[in-house]
C-alpha cells in the first residue's frame, strides 16, 4: 500500500517503482523484514518499525537511480561499484536497505555487512590467526555475522557447493563438494574458526558468482572503515592497522571488481568512523587516498535532504499514523517550523517528531 502525498491505495510491486512514485511510502511485509534484515537496519528505524507495527520506506531519487542501474546490469561485465554518500542523517543506510530488499525479492544472494566500523573497534578478544600468522581473528563478530548471513540466505546455502578442500585443524576438514551451509555451521559452532569460515564463504561466493548460477549483491555499510585506522591494539599496546585484521583483508578482496555476476553497493558513513572530522562526507575525505584508489572506478550517488514534496509526504505519513500528537503540528505554521528546524534532514526530522 502506498501512503503519502497522493494517497494511492493500489499495491505496486517492488520492481515496478517508477519516477512517478517518488516521494511515496512503500509498505514492506514484516515477515520479510525479519528474514532479510536480521541486522543492518538503523536502530531508530527499527524502533519506529516496532512502534507502528509496520515497515514503511519512502521511495526516493537515489534509490530509484540505483534500482534502474541494477535492473540494467550486464552480468558478463565485472561488478560495478556504487557508493552512496551524503551528509549525516540523509538516508544512506535506508536507501541501502531498499536496494537489498529489491535484490532479495529478485532472488539475488545478499552479502550484507551491516556496519564495517563495528569490526575495527571495541573488540574484546583478538586471536592470532591460525591461517596466517601476521593477521588477527575476531571470533565474536565473525560468528554473529555468520548467524545473520544464514538467516538471510537459507535457501542458497544448500545449493552452493565449495570447490576446494579446507582443513580446519588436525582432526577436522571440509571436503570438496560439500555445501556452503556446512562451512557456515562450522563457523557458528566452532567460534575459534569463525573468521576463517567467513573468509572461505567470501572466496567461494566470489569464485562461483562468475559461473552464473546466482546473482551476488555485496552491500557494505560504512565502507570507509576498511581503509581507515583502527582503535584495536596488540598486547604490547602497539596499534593494529586495518590490513592486519583477517575480516577486513577478506572484505577488501570482495569489493575489488575482478569478479562478475553481480554488483557492489557501498555506503560511506562518518557516524561510526574513527579519527575523521565530523563534517566530512565526501568520498575523498572519508576514504582517504588509499581507499579512493582501491575503489577507483565507482559510481558515486549523492543522497541529499528531503525536497519539499518528500518532506510533505513524510509529514503526511506521520500524521496518518498519528505520530505527531502536538496540536500545532497539523497547522501550516507548524510544518514550516519543522522544515526550518530540521532543514529537510530526514534524521533530524525523525528525532524532532519523536517528542512532538
Amino acid at each position, binding site marked *: 500500500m502506498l501512503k503519502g502525498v497522493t494517497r494511492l491505495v493500489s499495491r505496486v510491486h517492488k520492481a515496478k517503482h517508477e519516477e512517478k512514485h517518488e516521494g511515496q511510502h512503500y509498505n514492506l511485509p514484516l515477515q520479510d523484514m525479519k528474514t532479510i534484515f536480521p541486522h543492518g537496519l538503523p536502530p531508530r528505524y527499527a*524502533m519506529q518499525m516496532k512502534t*507502528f*507495527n509496520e515497515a514503511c520506506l519512502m521511495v526516493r531519487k537515489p534509490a530509484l537511480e540505483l534500482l534502474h542501474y541494477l535492473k540494467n546490469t550486464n552480468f558478463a561485465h565485472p561488478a560495478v561499484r556504487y557508493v552512496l554518500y551524503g551528509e549525516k542523517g540523509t538516508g544512506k543506510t535506508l536507501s541501502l536497505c531498499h536496494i537489498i530488499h529489491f535484490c532479495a525479492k529478485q532472488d539475488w544472494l545478499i552479502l550484507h555487512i551491516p556496519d564495517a566500523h563495528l569490526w575495527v573497534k571495541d573488540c574484546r578478544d583478538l586471536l592470532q590467526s591460525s591461517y596466517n600468522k601476521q593477521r588477527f581473528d575476531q571470533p565474536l563478530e565473525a560468528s554473529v555475522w555468520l548467524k545473520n548471513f544464514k538467516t538471510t540466505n537459507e535457501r542458497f546455502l544448500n545449493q552452493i557447493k565449495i570447490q576446494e578442500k579446507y582443513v580446519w585443524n588436525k582432526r577436522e576438514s571440509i571436503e570438496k563438494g560439500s555445501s556452503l551451509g556446512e562451512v557456515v555451521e562450522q563457523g557458528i559452532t566452532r567460534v575459534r574458526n569463525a573468521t576463517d569460515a567467513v573468509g572461505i564463504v567470501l572466496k567461494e561466493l566470489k569464485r562461483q558468482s562468475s559461473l552464473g548460477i546466482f546473482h551476488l549483491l555485496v552491500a557494505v555499510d560504512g565502507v570507509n572503515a576498511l581503509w581507515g585506522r583502527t582503535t584495536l591494539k596488540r598486547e604490547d599496546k602497539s596499534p593494529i592497522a586495518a590490513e592486519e585484521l583477517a575480516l577486513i583483508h577478506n572484505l577488501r578482496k570482495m569489493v575489488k571488481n575482478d569478479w562478475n555476476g553481480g554488483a557492489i553497493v557501498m555506503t560511506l558513513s562518518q557516524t561510526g568512523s574513527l579519527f575523521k572530522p565530523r563534517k566530512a562526507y565526501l568520498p575523498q575525505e572519508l576514504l582517504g587516498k588509499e581507499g579512493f584508489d582501491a575503489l577507483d572506478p565507482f559510481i558515486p550517488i549523492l543522497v541529499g535532504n528531503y525536497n519539499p514534496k518528500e518532506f510533505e509526504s513524510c509529514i503526511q505519513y506521520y500524521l496518518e499514523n498519528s505520530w505527531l500528537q*502536538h496540536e500545532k503540528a497539523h497547522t501550516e505554521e507548524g510544518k514550516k517550523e519543522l522544515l526550518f528546524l530540521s532543514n529537510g534532514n530526514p534524521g533530524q526530522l525523525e528525532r524532532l517528531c519523536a*517528542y512532538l
Partner: protein
Amino acid sequence: MMMKGGNKVLARSLMTQTLEAVKRKQFKKFHAASSEEQATIERNPYTIFHQALKNCEPVIGLAPILKGGRFYQVPVPLSDRRRRFLAMKWMITECREKKHRRTLMPEKLSQELLQAFHNQGPVVKRKHDMHKMAEANRALAHYRWW
C-alpha cells in the same frame, strides 16, 4: 530542577527522551488494546505530563511554627506555584533516588509519569501521606496567624 551545573542541553535532551518514551509506551498499549479501549488511551505526551503533575500536587501543606519553645507541624494552605514546585520536586527526587543503577532517567521518569497519570505510584502516595499528616494535625491549625 532537572538541570545540574547549568547543563540545559542535557536537561532538555532528557526531557525530550522522556516524552518520546512515554509516547512509544502509549502507542504500544494502543496497538494491543481493543477498539473500545483505544478511544480512552491518551497518546499525547504533553497532556500526560501536565495531567500527571496535576495529580501529584498537594492541596494542603505543613509548616513548622515555633510556639512556646517547640516546633509544631501546622497544616497550612499552599500557593499555586508552591504546589507545582512540590509536585515537580517530588517527581524528580523520586526518580533519582529510587532507581536501579543501570536504568536511565528518561526510562524511569516515563514510568513514574504514566503511573501518576493513572493516580497510582509512589509520588501520588507521597501526596496522600502529606494530606494525611495535615489531617492528623488538624488541631494545631489555629497556631497559624496568616
